[in-house]
């Protein structure tokens, strides 16, 4: 009998605990919703006035400007090698530049195999990692620099074309 009473007591307390948490959850969510909706005024109203290009530059930074320039310097059917230390550049370049086919070489992850076949060779450094000796030599022999982009933040992008 005592065990049954104890069980009922525990069950009742657990029910109360669940209901209490449920009410706290509602309160937190209401507060969160209020904060979220106020963002329309505090944060989002600025976005309304930006153009699509401005929005992309604000979201993605210099890589977007560089890739837009790279896009303008290349043909739709070009094969491009992008040598970079910026992880974001990998997938963003493939997305932005399609139908141009991009082979991305991430300095920290991939090994570069020389010679490079692609007509366009581009480099984009966010952390100022330079080129290896072999690569410098290859670029000097086989490629010609056609464009260089230097951002105010220090990122450097270069576009080379096969001689």
């Amino acid at each position: 009998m005592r065990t049954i009473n104890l069980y009922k007591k525990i069950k009742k307390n657990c029910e109360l605990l669940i209901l209490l948490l449920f009410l706290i959850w509602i309160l937190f969510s209401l507060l969160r919703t209020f904060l979220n909706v106020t963002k329309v005024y505090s944060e989002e109203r600025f976005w309304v006035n930006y153009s699509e290009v401005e929005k992309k530059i604000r979201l993605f930074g210099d890589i977007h400007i560089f890739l837009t320039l790279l896009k303008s310097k290349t043909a739709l059917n070009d094969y491009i090698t992008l040598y970079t230390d910026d992880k974001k550049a990998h997938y963003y370049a493939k997305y932005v530049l399609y139908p141009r086919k991009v082979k991305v070489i991430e300095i920290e992850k991939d090994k570069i195999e020389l010679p490079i076949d692609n007509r366009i060779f581009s480099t984009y450094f966010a952390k100022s990692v330079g080129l290896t000796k072999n690569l410098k030599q290859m670029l000097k022999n086989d490629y010609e620099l056609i464009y260089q982009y230097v951002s105010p933040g220090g990122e450097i992008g270069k576009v080379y074309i096969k001689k």
Partner: protein
Amino acid sequence: MIGTILGIIIIIITGYTLLRILNIDIFESIVEEIPYYFATGVGCIALQMYLYSRVGIPWGWYLIAGPWLILFTSVLLFKKYSLKLLPNLKLTRVGKVFLFINITLLLFVGFESVIRPLSAWDSWSIWLLKSKIFFIDGLIKPEIFTYVESDYPLAISLTGTFIYQVIGRVDDTSVLLLFFSFYLMLGIALFFSMRKYTGSTLAMTFTFLFLATQNILRHGGRYEAGQADLALGFYFFISAVLLYRYIITKERKSLLLCNICLGITALIKNEGITFVIIAQVIIIIQVLKTKKYKDILFSLLCIVPIVDWYIYKEVINMPKNFLLISPTIYIGRIGILLKEFLKEFLDLVRWNLLWALFILTTILNLSKSRKILIFYYLLFGQLAVYFLIYLITPINPIEHLRSSLNRLLIHLAPIAIIIMAIIISNIVGKTNNKLLKKHLKKLF
């Protein structure tokens, strides 16, 4: 923007037409049915584009939507079907307040979805990258899967391509309305599904709790829109609800629609396939119990497109998923993974109290109701699969888990919500504390 909205309307019309042709009339009102129109519409359009590409039919939007629009007109003209637009909603004052808040929240997330261009990484690298490629190429070129380095199914990407076809260009801002639509449809489906078991006001409250969860809201429109996780959560949820309905009512129409939704589920993301297997096992057990063996034939509707997709993957030699290259189970990870799972469950910024309360209600199992066991089987079965993924992953499991578990839990969150709603509804209805009962009954 108008083009995207038009594309979404065509998807809904396609689903409506399919449901009328199949004579599926298991819902009370049009509004309640809309999520199912949308769900089946996405599947139909994607499958149609996939088949067109296989047999060489071009993808003009009118060639895709045309047959459905003709069928839609015929259905309107020749098929008598009367269904009221709105159900009878009996909301208390609290319920009306939450209805207003939910509408505000939906407007906010809808606005958020189109204020910025696509910025979710996974979408650049998989979902909308494929949409863009398919749109530019005008068909599915097998070699593209090696270029994209992804073996994910194509339903979401092809629906994105369909939207681009309707707009006439790649617009990676307005296409995000498609992903907001999954958020909206999930909200509607959640409310109407819970309402039957909890009453309108409590269902409206739980719908709010779900829609206001930060992680869900972000995938619905704020920064993370463009990924397929919320869409998969939507298909998991409606399939689970339809399966539950079939088990309770034994209606064949529920099973038919459930199988259609399950078939699409497996074509949204790879994770869908294990959910489909769990659901099919439950269906087989149910069929054996009731001895309605013919019901099992409906499973073909689900299995045929999935088998076709896997054969296609083999034929074109699609790159294998990194998890399946040499699967080894690292048992030693169990302890650390449990700790990391718990950390994610208790991440209040992302989930608020959703998982904390779910764990508590599950441990205490207060409802003792066998009614919700089906939801538990599906949720825990799928959760076990996700745990297994981190046991076999060849990359650092902690890094892998921290970057992906928050997305995987989105798939299961709607099912967790309906379980909690039913349990809390039972507590509200059965509590012994008279004062509490009086106040709760007033509120809900």
